[in-house]
């Protein structure tokens, strides 16, 4: 009996209990004094509120001294039921919820979701609309990678880098504000287009940001990339082999860090990504340092893409023209009867989506963000499933953490660069 009590204190909840289950079974419910007291393992509960778990990830660690022998991630603390919520609202109403998936790159989520629904509708945006969306995605990528990089650096102790990256993110938020009116929860896209065209002076501001961003990134690069302490902390830590990365379904920089050249922007080009010249950085060893390098390079490539978009930005309409399914302009609604009726129907019943199912995945900063939509027709999805990259990426933790030291956990978590809002959705 006493065993049970001790273990209950040690592991009062299900996840930690599961870890001890094997041991308990061996004890068969009877108290047996530990023969080898030196070998006693400690259960360390990391999170859900812990400085290194970036939100509410919980990892139950079984430690042998400072060495981890077992790691069990426990997710779901930020579960809001987004997928269920989606079943009860029209397609366009769900856009603000996508802001809150990967809340470090809301623009990219908006775009990915809009593209998924547009795939269902069979729409293709005009060239300018696509270019604007590319701008959104790449701005979001820089913003998300900056935070991932800063948080990673902070986890291994380099606090200053974190604040340098935040200075840059501040500029990005200013751009977002200019573009969408909101700094954080952008909700910029609608099914079939954007809510508004690029504001006046936005392109100039963006070009200016690009010009000052690269030197700032170099500064961070100088602080970290050849820093002996940083190298010691990241090299050969959290190695994910090519095969493992594929087997565990990783995506994004984590997959590419392991040497798999797979980027949806190249593999399944959407938004005319094939028009832009950019490289997909690929790692070699699959350790934390490679993932860090991949992110650094991706930011540079994003700037490269942004500059191309700025240069080749086409004129013309930004939205799909489909009177039955796109809200008409306000000036028409107020002046013409047909448009007024369309407006009324669209707002009350939503767009008229065909029945069927689609899956669309976009290369988001964290990896492959996929939306699976099962439609039975009408303005509301029957089922909407979000394939969130953070969730899948985190699943590899039990595989790579054992054998590492306690301090490596933060380096691995930082380099996996996850967002719990997206993971728990």
């Amino acid at each position, binding site marked *: 009996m006493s065993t049970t009590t001790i273990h209950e204190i040690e592991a009062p909840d299900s996840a930690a209990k599961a870890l001890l289950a094997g041991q308990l079974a061996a004890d068969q419910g009877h108290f047996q004094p530990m023969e080898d007291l030196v070998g006693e393992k*400690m259960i360390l509960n990391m999170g859900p509120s812990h*400085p*290194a778990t970036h939100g509410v990830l919980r990892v139950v660690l079984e430690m042998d001294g400072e060495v981890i022998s077992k790691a069990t991630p426990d997710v779901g603390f930020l579960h809001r039921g987004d997928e269920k919520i989606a079943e009860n609202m029209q397609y366009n109403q769900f856009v603000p919820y996508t802001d809150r998936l990967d809340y470090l790159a809301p623009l990219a989520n908006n775009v990915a979701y809009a593209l998924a629904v547009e795939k269902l509708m069979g729409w293709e945006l005009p060239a300018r609309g696509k270019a604007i969306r590319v701008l959104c995605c790449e701005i979001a990528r820089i913003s998300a990678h900056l935070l991932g990089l800063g948080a990673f650096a902070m986890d291994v*102790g380099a606090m200053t880098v974190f604040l340098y990256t935040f200075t840059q993110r501040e500029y990005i938020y200013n751009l977002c504000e200019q573009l969408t009116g909101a700094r954080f929860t952008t909700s910029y896209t609608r099914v079939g287009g954007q809510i508004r065209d690029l504001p006046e002076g936005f392109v100039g501001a963006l070009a200016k940001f690009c010009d000052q961003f690269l030197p700032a990134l170099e500064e961070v690069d100088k*602080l970290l990339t050849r820093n002996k302490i940083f190298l010691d902390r990241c090299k050969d830590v959290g190695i994910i082999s090519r095969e493992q990365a594929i087997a565990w379904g990783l995506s994004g920089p984590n997959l590419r860090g392991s040497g798999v050249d797979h980027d949806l922007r190249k593999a399944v080009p959407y938004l005319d990504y094939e028009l832009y010249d950019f490289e997909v950085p690929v790692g070699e060893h699959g350790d934390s340092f490679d993932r860090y390098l991949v992110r650094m390079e991706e930011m540079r490539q994003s700037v490269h893409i942004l500059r191309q978009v700025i240069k080749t930005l086409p004129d013309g309409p930004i939205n799909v023209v489909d009177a039955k399914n796109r809200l008409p302009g306000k000036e028409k609604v107020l002046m013409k009867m047909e448009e007024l009726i369309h407006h009324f129907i669209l707002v009350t019943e939503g767009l008229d989506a065909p029945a069927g199912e689609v899956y669309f995945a976009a290369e988001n900063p964290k990896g492959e963000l996929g939306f699976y939509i099962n439609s039975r027709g009408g303005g509301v999805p029957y089922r909407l499933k979000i394939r969130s990259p953070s969730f899948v990426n985190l699943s590899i933790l039990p595989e790579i953490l054992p054998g590492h*030291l306690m301090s*490596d956990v933060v380096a691995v978590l930082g380099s996996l660069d996850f967002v719990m809002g997206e993971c728990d959705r």
Partner: protein
Amino acid sequence: MDFIALAISAVKIVGLVFLVIMPMVAYAVWAERRVSALIQDRVGPNRVGFQGLLQPVADGLKFILKEDFTPKNVRTGYYWLAPALTMVPALLTCAVLPFGSQLFGEPMVIANLNAGPLFIFAIASLSVYGIVLAGWASNSKYPFLGGVRSTSQMISYEISLGLSIIPVLMILGDLNLGRMVQDQSVNGWLMLPLWGDRFSLKGLLLLVPVVISFVVFTVSMFAETNRLPFDLPECETELVAGYHTEYSSMKFALFFLGEYAAMIIGSGLAVTLFFGGWSLPFGWLSWDGKADLPWWQGLIHMATFFGKVVVFILFFIWVRWSLPRFRFDQLMRLGLVFFFEIAVINIILTAGIMMLVK
């Protein structure tokens, strides 16, 4: 016992600890926040008083007014003892530091011991108990890990810390910190042998081991004071707050102040050993300890000492906000394999130079 001597000693203790060290600790915290803000393109605390200069007062008030919470399952006695054990050694060590030359005929050191460095190491090594006890008595896993880490870290780095100053003792041939400074004042600082006897082939050759020993000493000092990149006992992102996770209010403040006090004393020791303590460079206003000094010269010497200490503290801060943190095993390897060996080889090198070069 001479009553007047006792009174003077008491004045010196109270004056140094409460008028100099404690305000310096408080303003080291302020400087840390302002300088880190400067490094990170931020502003830092600048609201309380001119340029935030009253911030330490506000911080202190806040600490005093916070609830002093003792968690349920702690070992109360040790839990209460631990903060004191961190603070006391840090303050005790300042007893032998010569913080000035002479003022009104009184030597500006609390205890003019003939074994200054030994006293400092003996007392400073006690400070590990505060951290270990805090980690252990808290009855919590993160503080426990922090405590365990700090035990091995501080004990290992004490070895290289002790070995690193042996070349200095060999060159100066004295264990009295006051006389060590007087020697450097007349004959040139160990790290700047550009005047006096040390401005010679031997003195310049000896600069090599002195620089090595200074580097080892400084790094070990960082480790001893648990400052980044060696702040593993508390390392924020892994162990939440390490050994003082469970502490609040003034008890937490004592840990905090103890860390800064240790940093100031460490800076003072480095200044005394390598940069001529209170002496000015190039033999200006030098003093060999024989004649009485005018009071203004004594004040200048004191100001010089604390000026040098401030520079060192700024260096501490600069390093802290520039570097990432070591991992525990890397830190131990660095301390026990790398610095230990360097320190030993350095002793032999010093001896060789002193033997061969006349």
